[in-house]
């Protein structure tokens, strides 16, 4: 019997059954993929880190190193199992050439290492420790993915020729989020190129017991050992390895929640419409003594069938996509040892979706219990009580025409019924507007203020070279005599140690120079003017726990010096942790130098950029627009793409939900529709009434969605941006697109969906619904 009922029902509503099945399948597929990916990712990371024997504690250090002191510390510390210091040879990207192109434009810090002896091994793509021969070069896996190099290619490093023998997985620096990348060469080759770059040290420890990590870290810091560079621990390595694929999994999970919510809404609206259609029959079944659970089973059977079909389809589809999604994990981290569990978790994920749907249908069907058999048989439709809006009377209405009045009145009288549609429209407006505003904000020129740089026309970067100060002086001298340049500022970045309130130390990249020439926006305070003042980036201020007016101790030329925090500014460059000061310092090594210039005429920018680039080939010269584009171009374009995708998704959801909702409403209201038709209302009148309902809900939805987007949305976007180091984030809204085009797109979608969704109203026969 169930089979026949299900078959007939599905045949009657093919389109909606197919839509629901597709959404269930998509939700099942995504949940299953997320489960499979989580298991594989964690398994692959474990395998990689186990085989590579990733250090538990790693301190990067540049400058003088005292190996003896470090060895003595390692021997004396009871937690240490093994200890080693590796060299990492930083080489300018320009000096690394594959085929025609160099890595000059590459954002990564590329460097060279030899295979370590004790732990922290570099592995080949089979997961084995690489034995590298002279003349061979192993290239980080990310360069295989972006086709920079292939096995057998020639690579020229600082003029020395190598053959790419293979690619390597680096359990420390694999992640695209890790800014350094290690190439592997033989000991002999390394010795040859050693003087052609700057050496950094990786001071690495493996502990006997990882749980002693915090105690060890404290011991290392209090021993005052080498620490001119970042410290990374085992859990952070794990996190770094997991984060980019983890983000993808998080996105898949989020999307799956969204898809499942749509599937649930499809089910809810179609089920409610079906219950309304069958209202009298349900009443009869109850009246003749069938138990509610028996009646429920008939309806449940159909959705269980859809859920099972959707889940099977979703599982099959997950096989199609899993290879594609696992490819990245496999490439970067290798096979997982527990991939057999993955299938189990994948199936478990699908079962979860299946059970959730069945449980949901069961909950929706609970209304059978309240259904009065007598009422159902008598009226054939549910008898809802209308509430509210009593004072909104037709007899006193002078504002709307009668059809619009009936539309608005219905929404006011049955608020809870329209709440679902309103929520969907609010969310749609939100997802349309927020990414759009974010995209507009980060692509606007004023976004430069979040980047910790003032408003200039041209920017010259001098880094990864020697004699930076001499070279900067040379450029400065040229600029002084260049009449096209109205003003310029030389800002030199050096690292100083700051003492935190808990006594520990932290390196701060401090930009020294005159900050009044190209001022940045300070969220609090002002630019440093006196020798004893320092301005901190938001992230540094947070991390050091400092506010404007507080003191901070910096080690300058070997002596501790107390400075006052005079301002806090937004900076999303250099990891968001920078500072600005004006004091003079002759000791510490210069990390880089930036020269900003303003031209008398903006049209001269491109000419001046090429002139300075030709003249000073050691410097990177760029127009400010180009600089923003280079630094954030890919982010701007990704956010742009994401905002367009969000608009499409939101509109599809709007159309689908409106369509289903209207379909349900027509089923629910068929008695009223029949009455109105009997008394002389035309099909067009009825349709206009439904359009008025939609438009009324739409207007409220758009207004609320826009308000929410500009308040909560701005806060959310601000939170994301502030994680990169910006503060006091404000949306740059394009009113034409946000307040005109977006609402029009939504209105168009809602109207089309309403017109299609209410087409059933024209087919309602008067005599079938009001005949006694």
């Amino acid at each position: 019997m169930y089979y026949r009922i299900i078959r007939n029902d599905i045949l009657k509503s093919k389109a909606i059954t197919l839509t629901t099945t597709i959404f269930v399948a998509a939700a099942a597929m995504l949940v299953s993929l997320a489960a499979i990916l989580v298991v594989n990712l964690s398994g692959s990371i474990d395998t990689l880190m186990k085989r590579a024997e990733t250090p538990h504690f790693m301190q990067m250090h540049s400058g003088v190193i005292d190996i003896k002191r470090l060895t003595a510390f390692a021997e004396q510390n009871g937690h240490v199992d093994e200890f080693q210091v590796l060299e990492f040879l930083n080489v300018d990207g320009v000096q690394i050439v594959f085929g025609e192109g160099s890595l000059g434009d590459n954002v990564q810090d590329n460097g060279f290492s030899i295979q370590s002896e004790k732990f922290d091994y570099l592995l080949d793509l089979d997961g084995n420790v690489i034995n590298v021969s002279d003349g061979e070069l192993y290239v980080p896996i990310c360069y295989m993915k972006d086709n920079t190099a292939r096995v057998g290619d020639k690579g020229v490093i600082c003029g020395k020729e190598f053959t790419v023998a293979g690619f390597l997985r680096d359990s420390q620096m694999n992640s695209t989020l890790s800014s350094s990348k290690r190439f592997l060469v033989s000991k002999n080759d390394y010795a040859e190129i050693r003087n052609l770059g700057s050496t950094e040290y990786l001071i690495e420890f493996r502990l006997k017991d990882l749980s002693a990590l915090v105690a060890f870290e404290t011991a290392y810091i209090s021993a005052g050992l080498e620490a001119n560079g970042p410290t990374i621990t085992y859990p952070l390595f794990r996190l770094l390895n997991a984060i980019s694929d983890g983000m993808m999994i998080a996105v898949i999970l989020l999307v799956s929640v969204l898809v499942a919510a749509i599937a649930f809404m499809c089910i809810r609206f179609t089920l409610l419409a079906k219950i309304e259609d069958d209202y009298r029959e349900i009443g009869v079944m109850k009246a003749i003594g069938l138990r509610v659970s028996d009646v429920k089973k008939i309806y449940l059977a159909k959705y269980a069938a859809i859920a099972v079909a959707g889940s099977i389809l979703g599982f099959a589809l997950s096989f199609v996509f899993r290879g594609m999604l696992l490819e990245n994990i496999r490439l970067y981290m290798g096979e997982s040892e527990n991939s057999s569990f993955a299938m189990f978790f994948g199936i478990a994920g699908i079962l979860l979706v299946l059970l959730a749907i069945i449980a949901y249908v069961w909950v929706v069907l609970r209304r059978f219990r309240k259904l009065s058999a007598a009422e159902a048989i008598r009226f054939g439709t549910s008898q809802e009580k209308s509430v509210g809006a009593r004072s909104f009377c037709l007899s006193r209405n002078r504002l709307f025409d009668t059809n619009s009045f009936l539309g608005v009145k219905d929404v006011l009288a049955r608020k809870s019924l329209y709440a679902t549609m309103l929520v969907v429209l609010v969310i749609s407006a939100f997802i349309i507007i927020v990414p759009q505003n974010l995209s507009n904000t980060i692509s606007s020129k004023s976004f430069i203020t979040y980047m910790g740089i003032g408003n200039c026309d041209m920017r010259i970067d001098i880094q990864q070279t020697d004699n930076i100060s001499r070279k900067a002086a040379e450029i400065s001298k040229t600029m002084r005599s260049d009449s096209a340049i109205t003003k310029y500022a030389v800002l030199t970045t050096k690292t100083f140690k700051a003492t935190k309130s808990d006594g520990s130390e932290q390196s701060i990249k401090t930009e020294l120079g005159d900050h009044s020439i190209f001022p940045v926006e300070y969220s609090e305070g002002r630019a440093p003017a006196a020798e004893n003042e320092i301005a901190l980036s938001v992230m540094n201020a947070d991390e050091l726990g400092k506010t404007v007016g507080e003191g901070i101790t910096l080690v300058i030329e070997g002596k501790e010096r107390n400075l006052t925090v005079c301002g806090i500014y937004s900076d999303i460059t250099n990891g968001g942790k920078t500072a600005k000061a004006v004091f003079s310092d002759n000791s510490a090594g210069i990390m880089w130098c930036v020269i900003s210039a303003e031209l008398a005429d903006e049209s001269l920018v491109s000419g001046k950029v090429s002139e300075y680039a030709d003249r000073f080939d050691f410097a990177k010269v760029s127009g400010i627009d180009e600089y923003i584009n280079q630094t954030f171009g890919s982010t701007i374009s990704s956010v742009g793409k994401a905002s367009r995708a969000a608009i499409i998704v939101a509109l599809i959801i709007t159309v689908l939900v409106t369509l289903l909702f209207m379909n349900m409403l027509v089923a629910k209201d068929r008695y009223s529709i029949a009455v109105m038709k009997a008394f002389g209302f035309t099909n067009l009148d009825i349709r206009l009434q439904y359009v008025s309902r939609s438009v009324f809900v739409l207007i409220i939805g758009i207004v609320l969605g826009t308000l929410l987007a500009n308040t909560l949305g701005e806060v959310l976007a601000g939170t994301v941006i502030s994680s990169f180091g910006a503060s006091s984030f404000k949306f740059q809204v394009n009113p034409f697109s946000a307040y005109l085009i977006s609402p029009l797109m939504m209105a168009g979608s809602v109207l089309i969906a309403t017109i299609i969704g209410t087409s059933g109203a024209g087919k309602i026969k008067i005599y079938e619904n009001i005949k006694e």
Partner: protein
Amino acid sequence: MKKIIMGENIVKSFGEGDEKRNVLDGVSVEINEGEFVSVMGPSGSGKSTLMFSLCGMDGIDSGKVTFSGRDLSVLKEQELADIRRTKMGFVFQQPTLLKNLNILDNIILPSMRDNRKNAAKITKKARALMKKVGIAELEKRDITQVSGGQLQRAGICRALMSNPKIIFGDEPTGALNSKYAQEIMDILSEINAEGTAVMLVTHDAKVAARTERIMFMRDGKIVSEMRLPKFNGTHIDDRMIKVMAKMREMGI
């Protein structure tokens, strides 16, 4: 007498294939201006279907229905709606009022569709009708706050708003107790006395006895007709006896 509705050889069927059954099997009927007629017959004889076919709410398979000389079968949906709204009135067994509207709004609703600018005039007329049928004090009430008889009176007010040429009633007293039923019939008789034709479908001999022409239906056909003098408020029992005798004769 001028005819307002003419049905000629109306055939209407339900079901398909072997299940197909003629509910109206070649029915011809005429209703004159100001006439008070009723249709009686056992359940399933086609009474209500005949009424729905004559007022254009339901299509027919063959035959012809004309209203004031216009062939309903060739009219578009909007034109049929216009005729129902402006020239006909309807009273059903269940008070077909909308839940979202109060009593007054329900009554003025069809009239307001065309004449929103005359809202004040329309409302005034509705109040006068409400007073006439004795529900003047109920205008702001929800439809759940009044009795079945009061709702039916509101339904009659709505039917009268457009000064219809004819009022169709499908068991208008079927859901009411005898006191309310009599009151409704009194109102309908009064309306008819003022010149509006009334066609009622009923099982109730007491209702039929108020009318001047009774058509008896069986198996989709009008099998007999009975004429009575115009009801003047007296001798209802005699009229009823005659109607019941005819019903017995027809096996109803």
